[in-house]
């Protein structure tokens, strides 16, 4: 008998089991909710960004019109930076829940503005957001266990097992076909809402395909694990309830314990400065500068910007060029900590990627976040985009501070514009 005939028989068999149909309907509803929740969140983020872009320009133009010198213009005007969600972000909100995706920055020292808040979201630290990635990485194994834990034992308990195995031409094909049919129905219930979501957000075919591969891969892992366990000697004499308990213990270990323990281990293994330390270092440097002789600031500033050595003469009154120079020095003093923070974040992420091999749910979540461009790397790319943009602002203003004396509002139309450098069509 061909595998196809086996699958056809088991599909007809499944179609007559109302309890399973109810379960698949529930999973379908959960998947719809997860996709809807993700789309709502990303739509809200996009709307917020669009609204802020519009307000940002109006606000800046209003502020600049009231200024009479470049220093005040730089001091009072804000600049919006943002990281738009990719078209696939609805499926895995990922680190966008933890790291900020919008900042309004000024020409002041930048590191303190980036690390004004530490990356932390205690409300979501345990369960996470109910998005498609959560459904697939955390709940999907439970669905597979629920469907397959008693694939053999329920037949033993009902007294049908011997009849089934002696009647079946190839008994392994019976269990395999039954498992394939149930897992296919589970996949359809999970995937259909996701595909609808991907079409709605116009996600690319490649990322949609990759996401589907991850989902199917995760189902295959748990199907193989559950089938192997239920066929093992350890499960032969166990009741369905005991087999379910043992498989749930495995799920608990890999979906909860491994991530928690690996997080503790990573925190012990990697020493990282806190965002607050960076902020404090930078602010102390800025505040101290007011009480120090001008030369202390200029020496530090000129070590990185020697091109302005001829423009550092100071009059008897306050001058903006000195003010922005010590903001620059504040960043320079905080840069060591800031680099250490970024290196530690990358190291933690790399270690987490190793630990993820022990936990299929963790690995699945990481892969989905990576495909959706909502992982740690995406968050760090955004941080770097902010730094790059802030650098462009400095490169625009410094010549004005050091060489121009008369404020020209028209010049402000040449202010660099922020771009999040994301090709939306890719996501």
């Amino acid at each position, binding site marked *: 008998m061909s595998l196809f005939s086996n699958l056809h028989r088991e599909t007809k068999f499944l179609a*007559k089991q109302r309890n399973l149909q109810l379960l698949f309907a529930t999973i379908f509803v959960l998947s719809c909710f997860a996709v809807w929740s993700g789309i709502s969140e990303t739509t809200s983020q996009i709307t917020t960004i669009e609204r802020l872009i519009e307000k940002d320009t109006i606000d800046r133009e209003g502020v600049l019109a009231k200024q009479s010198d470049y220093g005040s213009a730089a001091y009072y005007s804000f600049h919006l930076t943002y990281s738009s969600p990719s078209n696939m972000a609805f499926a895995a909100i990922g680190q966008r829940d933890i790291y900020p995706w919008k900042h309004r920055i000024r020409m002041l020292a930048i590191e303190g503005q980036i690390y004004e808040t530490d990356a932390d979201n205690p409300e979501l630290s345990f369960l996470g957001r109910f998005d498609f990635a959560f459904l697939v990485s955390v709940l999907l194994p439970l669905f597979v266990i629920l469907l397959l834990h008693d694939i053999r034992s329920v037949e033993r308990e009902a007294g*049908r097992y011997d009849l089934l195995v*002696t009647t079946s031409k190839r008994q392994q094909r*019976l269990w395999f076909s039954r498992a394939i049919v149930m897992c296919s129905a589970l996949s359809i219930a999970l995937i259909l809402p996701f595909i609808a979501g991907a079409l709605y957000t116009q996600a690319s075919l490649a990322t949609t395909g990759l996401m589907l591969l991850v989902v199917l891969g995760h189902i295959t892992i748990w199907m193989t694990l559950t089938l192997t366990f239920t066929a093992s000697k350890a499960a032969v004499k166990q009741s369905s309830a005991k087999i379910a308990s043992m498989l749930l213990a495995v799920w608990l270990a890999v979906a909860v314990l491994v991530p928690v323990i690996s997080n503790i281990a990573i925190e012990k293994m990697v020493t990282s400065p806190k965002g607050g330390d960076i902020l404090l270092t930078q602010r102390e440097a800025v505040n101290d500068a007011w009480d120090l002789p001008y030369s202390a600031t200029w020496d530090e500033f000129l070590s990185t910007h020697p091109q302005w050595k001829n423009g550092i003469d100071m009059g008897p009154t306050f001058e903006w060029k000195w003010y922005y120079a010590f903001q620059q020095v504040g960043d320079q003093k905080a840069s060591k900590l800031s680099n250490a923070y970024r290196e530690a974040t990358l190291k933690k992420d790399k270690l987490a990627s190793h630990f993820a091999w022990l936990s299929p749910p963790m690995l699945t979540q990481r892969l989905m976040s990576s495909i959706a461009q909502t992982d740690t790397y995406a968050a760090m790319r955004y941080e770097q985009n902010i730094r790059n943009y802030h650098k462009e602002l400095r490169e625009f203003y410094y010549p004005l501070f050091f060489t121009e004396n008369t404020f020209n509002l028209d010049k402000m139309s040449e202010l660099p514009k922020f771009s999040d450098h994301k090709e939306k069509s890719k996501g």
Partner: protein
Amino acid sequence: MQEEIIAASSLCVRLNNQTILDNVNFNVAKGEIFALLGGNGAGKSTTLKTLLGIVPPSEGSAAVMNKSVKTDIDFIRSKVAYLPESVMLYGHLTGVENIEYFLSLADITCSESDIERALVRVALQEKAWRQPMSNYSKGMRQKAAIALALLRDAPILFLDEPTSGLDPNAIDEFNQLIATLAAEGTTVFMVTHDVYGACQIAHRIGLLDHGKVVGMFERGDQSHINTEEVHSAFSKRNKR
């Protein structure tokens, strides 16, 4: 010499350090109805399960159609129709759907009229054919399972306590059906603790006690085996 269909030779089965079958020897010829008789825990079902490849032999050999249960179990299972003691088919499927499902497991395609003919032959009421099996009595389930065995058209029938729980009329009908099948060349191997039923239907009876065959009774020229003789031997053994 009649063709030997089932043979057990020095068959031993040990499970969890307990000897369940101890040096069991018997053989069953083509078209013969052989009953293995014994009390609870005598090892009857283990013998049947060993022949079906569900329980592996520890020593000795068991063969069906000259094929070893150790090496050719797929072949053996394709030639055997098995009727378990307590027939529990799928409650959410109808009688006809259950038969269709199990036949398709065995890679057998039957038309609905073939199934209906088999159900008529086992005297299952027509109104029950398309009812969910959860509504069936034990006797009705047994009949549906016998219909399944008939449709498999297997040359060998393995029956585990086949008349247990059936009413007297159903037992008579069942016995008649088995006798007809044997006359048509089907070999029947049954395990039972029903002395009277076994004597009525079997051509030969093996008496199993604590995993050993302790007696063999034959019909000879009589229409059935001497019930008194078997009962006396069975009672003595059970009183020990």
